[in-house]
């Protein structure tokens, strides 16, 4: 456990010194929160467009932010693999679980900090736009967004293990786009329906958004919240297991 924590600390320091991390994981989601809130103000009320209302938008933006945590996980792992630094650590008494947990722990911490900052920003935007947000929902979503965070950073770990430092960011940006679009972050997937909704329902991203939105609105119905949380949690466990297996196999191959 001590070695896991040492490695997690190193990764946290490494990430905290990357300015791009702050820009993409914190500043960009906040910017999108503000921009989309302005867009929402411009849409006539008669249109009945609810996606960009702050109690809907903040949940979507939270998932949008988590996709960037995935991107940075992939970059960190792929960069470490490309240098001899990881090779030195493979020769140390560290076990493979120390590596995978050491990558995941700081990322979960970053996701929690990101959720806190985004929820505080949502409070400010809600105050300005005159929409009331439930404090309990905002606090609870920080905790209940952890499964989706684990899912995304596990995907990042998989891509970081399989791809090199040049291709990992490219492939991850495809997932960022797909996660945002098929997760219904910036459009009403249920409203669109048809084949798009079917595709969205086959992937975990929409369920992540549903959990975040339902929690913020304190809507704990089975169909919107319970079922989605179960799917997201199971996907997170599966992805985490797959990430551990992928990293282990790449660890052997890299040697």
């Amino acid at each position, binding site marked *: 456990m001590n070695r896991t924590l040492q490695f997690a*600390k190193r990764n946290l320091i490494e990430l905290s010194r990357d300015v791009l991390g702050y820009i993409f994981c914190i500043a960009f989601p906040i910017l999108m929160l503000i921009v989309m809130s302005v867009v929402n103000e411009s849409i006539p009320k008669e249109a009945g467009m609810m996606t960009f209302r702050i109690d809907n938008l903040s949940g979507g933006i939270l998932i949008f932010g988590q996709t960037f945590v995935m991107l940075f996980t992939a970059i960190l792992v792929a960069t470490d693999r490309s240098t001899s630094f990881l090779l030195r650590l493979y020769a140390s008494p560290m076990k493979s679980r120390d590596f995978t947990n050491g990558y995941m722990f700081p990322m979960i911490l970053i996701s929690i900090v990101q959720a806190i900052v985004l929820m505080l920003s949502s409070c400010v935007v809600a105050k300005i736009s005159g929409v009331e947000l439930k404090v309990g929902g905002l606090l609870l979503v920080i905790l209940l967004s952890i499964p989706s965070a684990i899912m995304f950073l596990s995907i990042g770990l998989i891509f970081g293990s399989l791809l090199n430092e040049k291709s990992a960011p490219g492939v991850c940006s495809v997932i960022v786009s797909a996660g945002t679009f098929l997760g219904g972050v910036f459009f009403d997937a249920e409203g669109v329906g048809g084949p798009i909704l079917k595709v969205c329902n086959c992937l975990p991203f929409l369920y992540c958004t549903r959990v975040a939105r339902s929690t913020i609105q304190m809507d704990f119905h089975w169909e919107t919240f319970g079922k989605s949380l179960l799917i997201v949690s199971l996907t997170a466990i599966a992805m985490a297991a797959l990430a551990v297996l992928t990293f282990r196999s790449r660890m052997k191959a890299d040697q």
Partner: protein
Amino acid sequence: MKTARKELEKTTGENIKTGKTPVRYQEMWWTIESNLTEKNIIEKNIIEKNIIEKNIIEKNIIEKNIIEKNIIEKNIIEKNIIEKNVIEKNVIEKNVKKKDMEKKGMGKMKNMIVLENLSKNYGVKKAVDDINLTVKEGEMLSLLGVNGAGKSTTIKMLSCLTKPSGGTAKIDGRDVVKERDRVKEIVGISTQDTAIARNLTVEENLSFMAGIYLDPKAFDKKKREERVEEILRDFKLEEVRRTKSGKLSGGWQRRLSIAMAMIGNPKVLLLDEPTLGLDVLARRELWREIEKIKKNRTIILTTHYMEEAEALSDRIAIMIKGKIIMTGTLGELEEKTGQKGLENVFVSVVEGEEKHE
């Protein structure tokens, strides 16, 4: 004369035939001729003066070049003498050490590293081909070989980074395959590339490695910090302790890399081309650091630099195409090959092997 006549014609406006200067112009003729002679003498003097000056300058330049050349030659000779002295000093020290070891009965020291029929295949390619090698406790062995000789693969097998395809490798009696975790506890490695966390400071890199290698039960936070301070001091890294390691020069990075390998106070240290790509001064500086950590530690060093192997190691093993062709002290190798100096020994062994094929 012709010029004086033309001058006279110009002054008088009359056509004056050669050798028939009218009497009325005789005085004028003499004056012109005298002036021209003086002018010619002055011009001649100026030309002569210029030639002399030019010669002096050229002479000075030549002399300056000769002096500079002499200084350079003198410096080269002095440098060679110093290098020779350093190597001779090391050889003498090694012999003294060897004699001391023999006197104390330490010549019979236990075998720290034992390789028996060790092989590593990558597909059909034999990277390491059935090698046998023994390194005693406290001994420093240099693995010499051209690129692709199998030096780094041997190091990788010893550091449990890759599994052997055949044979056994034991470090302090621990098998590198069956007892990987126990081997990793006593082996430190510095890889070919500087394996450092580039965004972490020098101190953070060392603290991180201390957390990885030092058992928390035996080393609490305070003791770990003390160990980091000790290493910072030993490797003279104090002045760059708060510098991000990615911003250090190549020499400093190598030094940090070896310091990181030393944090766990390993019984065995594997140095894979530690001075690769360093300038001569940085290399010498690193040699001094390696000399310091040599005491009572078993070290295997791979290198391309003959003078490095000559200056640092107790024994030398020459690897060619995955096989260890020759092992021994420099004196033994010279005796076996009939050559003087490690470079000649190495070339002779490599060429001999090529002819043999």
